[in-house]
């Protein structure tokens, strides 16, 4: 057996396709009027239809069609003018009818793509199809949950919650690309307001089809399907693991078996769930209880026209219109609300690059610590306008601006007021700064010797000391200039 680390993995190329399930943000289920609210008492959000009582019939929630079509349009899909539902037949207690209403032949959206950026390069990932289907319920195993009983509960609150299944082409070549693709899909879904994209709560789920082949080989290798990838991190890790596992199997002279594997996030491995021979024959056939979906061209044109500006277009516009680096534009546009907040501030007169930095650095840091996004704090776009002016007129330094931002996010006080209260006025008086510089040099003669001897990186140390002495108020540019003067 070879040690996987000794194998030249670069000999191989991975081929990956993702099947993403996105729970739609509708108030009611896909085929009945029951609520889709998450976390209610078991079986309280059910009716004869989603319980699969004898004699009931499904009626399509039109909103789900609209949401799916919007997603198709936003991912450059062709929208089918004629589409139909199909039954996917299998037995399981969480599936009350014994079949899931899904789409098989003639899905509503086909032949699309999204663009992702990896290592600075833009790549198109093809979308094979997007279709609508109903979610199943949930089985709760008493024995597994430590209750001791050898029976299970069935909660059908989730049965009939609308899902979109978004199937990609096998265009993805690395775990990083897979994660970027997932992130891009999530961004698009959230822009459209059709899915909240919450992977932890399961409203965005992902299965990955993974195979490997020798670099340069045309034929695909044997693929496995990896299930249970419920975070971006696990999407990357599970695919990474699975690629290495398959390479190792091949290097050891074995063959990859076509099978379904389950990602075990605790152990960080994938495990066989069922082989091809054990795979279900779902016996798909057209759902006779629902009439085919015929999409009216005018209605479709209206939907197309009413689409919001999508992340890719917004990103490009942020670069050209505000002169932002590609990286900033990408990050700012990954959430629609963030992009809108940025743009509002800039429109009111805030400095684009400074604002971008404040949102991406201080804003994201604040969000990480407090769980509140910058636009949800008391900080308003106009505050960033004031702050931009304070920086531009050199009243405050960049460092000061950063601490002011945090305070505005906490309190909502205008920056000018904070400046007054805290005495956050930058010292630009040469003599005052020079005095501080001299004091620092006097205190650190050894360091100053080394500095003079050519250890240039020590300049940071001295700037830091001066800033400390002046409580951050000294104009850093002036400190730098003065230090260099002392040197020569």
């Amino acid at each position, binding site marked *: 057996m070879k040690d996987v680390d000794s194998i030249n993995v670069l000999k191989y190329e991975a081929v990956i396709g993702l099947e993403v399930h996105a729970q739609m943000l509708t108030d009611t289920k896909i085929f009945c009027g029951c609520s889709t609210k998450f976390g209610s008492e078991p079986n309280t959000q059910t009716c004869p239809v989603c319980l699969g009582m*004898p004699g009931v*019939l499904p*009626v399509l929630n039109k909103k789900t069609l609209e949401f799916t079509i919007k997603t198709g349009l936003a991912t450059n899909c062709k929208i089918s003018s004629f589409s139909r539902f199909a039954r996917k037949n299998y037995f399981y207690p969480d599936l009350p*009818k014994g079949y899931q209403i899904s789409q098989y032949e003639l899905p509503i959206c086909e032949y699309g793509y999204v663009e992702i950026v990896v290592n600075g390069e833009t790549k198109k990932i093809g979308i094979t199809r997007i279709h609508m289907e109903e979610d199943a319920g949930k089985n709760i195993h008493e024995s597994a949950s430590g209750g001791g009983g050898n029976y299970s509960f069935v909660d059908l609150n989730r049965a009939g919650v609308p899902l979109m299944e978004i199937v990609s082409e096998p265009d993805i070549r690395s775990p990083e690309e897979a994660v970027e693709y997932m992130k891009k899909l999530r961004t698009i879904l959230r822009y459209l307001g059709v899915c909240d994209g919450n992977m932890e709560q399961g409203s965005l789920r992902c299965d990955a089809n993974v195979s490997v082949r020798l670099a340069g080989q045309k034929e695909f290798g044997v693929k496995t399907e990896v299930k249970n990838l419920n975070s971006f991190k696990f999407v990357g890790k599970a695919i990474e693991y699975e690629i290495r596992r398959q390479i190792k199997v091949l290097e050891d002279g074995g063959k990859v078996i076509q099978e379904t594997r389950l990602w075990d996030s605790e152990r960080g491995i994938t495990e066989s769930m069922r082989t091809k021979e054990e795979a279900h024959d779902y016996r798909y*056939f057209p759902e006779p209880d629902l009439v085919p979906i015929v999409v009216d061209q005018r209605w479709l044109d209206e939907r197309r026209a009413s689409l919001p500006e999508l992340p890719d277009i917004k990103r490009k516009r942020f670069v050209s219109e505000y002169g932002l680096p590609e990286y900033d534009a990408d990050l700012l546009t990954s959430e629609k609300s963030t992009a809108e907040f940025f743009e509002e501030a800039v429109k009111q007169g805030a400095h684009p690059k400074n604002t971008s930095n404040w949102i991406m650095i201080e804003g994201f840091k604040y969000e990480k610590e407090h769980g509140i996004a910058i636009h949800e704090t008391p900080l308003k776009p106009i505050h960033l306008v004031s702050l931009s002016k304070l920086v531009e007129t050199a009243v405050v330094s960049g460092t000061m601006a950063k601490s002011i931002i945090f305070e505005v996010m906490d309190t909502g006080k205008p920056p000018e007021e904070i400046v007054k209260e805290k005495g956050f006025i930058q010292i630009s008086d040469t003599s005052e700064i020079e005095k501080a510089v001299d004091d620092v040099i006097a205190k650190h003669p050894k360091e100053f010797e080394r500095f003079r001897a050519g250890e240039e990186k020590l300049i940071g140390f001295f700037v830091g000391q001066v800033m400390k002495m002046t409580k951050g108020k000294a104009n850093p540019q002036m400190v730098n200039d003065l230090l260099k003067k002392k040197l020569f």
Partner: protein
Amino acid sequence: MELYSQTISELRDLLDRKEVSVKEVVNSIYQRIDRVEEKIKAFVTITEDKALEMAEEAQKKLNSMEAQNSKSLLGIPIAIKDNMCTKGIRTTCSSKILYNFIPPYESTVTSRLIEHGYVLIGKTNLDEFAMGSSTENSGFHVTRNPWDLERAPGGSSGGSAAAVASDECIAALGSDTGGSIRQPASLCGVVGLKPTYGRVSRYGLVAFASSLDQIGPITKNVRDAAILMNIISGHDPFDSTSVPLPVPDFTAVLGRNIKGMKIGIPREYFIEGMDKEVEISVKDAIRKLESLGAIPVEVSLPHTGYAVATYYVLATSEASSNLARYDGVKYGLRAEGKNLLDIYMNTRAQGFGSEVKRRIMLGTYALSSGYYEAYYRKAQQVRTLIKKDFEDAFTFVDIIVTPTSPTAAFKIGEKTADPLQMYLSDIFTISVNLAGVPGISLPCGFTSNNLPIGLQLIGKHFDEESILKVAYAYEQSTDWHKRRPNL
């Protein structure tokens, strides 16, 4: 004349003129049931307490309104095939797997009957899940033909047809997937109408084959069928396959002249093997229609020979999926088992009868990977051709006339050993379901054994009016519908 032997329109008159009370009518029915049900066994559940409640309610309404405002079914005793959900009242589909199922909701058709003040007499027997042509496949008991207790009433709506024929109710509802209203109506000497697919809501009808099932009336005469059609027809937001077309007053066409109407006689339906007495009666009926001014025209429905095979692929495929929900998890029978798979298998092994199992297996096979193209898809293609046959024929004629069934009522047990023989009993009715067009069966004669013979009239999509008009004209010029079995 006994009250139980009246029709809907006759009773309407008596009730509105306050000559009889609803209670008297209902009591008369239950007395009749007491006397004959033991022989017929048309019912799975008799709902006498509920009926008396509904009767009282109906009487109150009747008393408080002007006669001309009374709704057409106020106080009329009607039986419902036991595959339509009635809230709070056991609905079994004559299957052991649903022996204890009490629906928490009301089907759309019975909701409409309730709005019109009907009185539910009971739930009638059927072939389990409506799969059969004799009602012998009931999971509970066999229903007998009121004209000859040794014979089957037909099926699957055999309970409803027998109940109407034996005056155990004034009218009934049945369901028809391949002939299940028309064939028992024919074999029991009553009127049965299968509406156009999409005319009547299927919400609450326990599905056998969703693309073929349709609910319709089984009545003592054509007028009553039209009256019930007026009530049960129309779009239902709970059934996407029900069509949002306006519903005409079906009684308005009754009595209209049929002069000049072209009636198609499909040459493929008059073939070797048909019972001679049936053939003679149907040909006589055609001559009668001709004498009333209709013009017979020979037409061809070239794909008729494929109808039975097509039907048994499509209907069983849909059924195999529709019946998957009976797994012992949520309602109905649950057998013991060591694990989940055991519970599934034991429940379904014990709960379903052999014909249902046969059809689930056939359908599962036809949908299986590797066979789908050869069976299901091919059958869908043939179905399109059969539908086109009718569309083509209807460019020449207004209605099509055929026998309803190739034979009169057969003996109980005669065909149970040979399912294929049983399937052929629906050879003249099945195409109508595949094409989705409406069809009515009405009495057109009797065999030498005094067994009723049925005439089938087939109409264009959503043109139930034409077949009702012709049926009524024929009925008014004959006395077949007045004959009653001796019980």
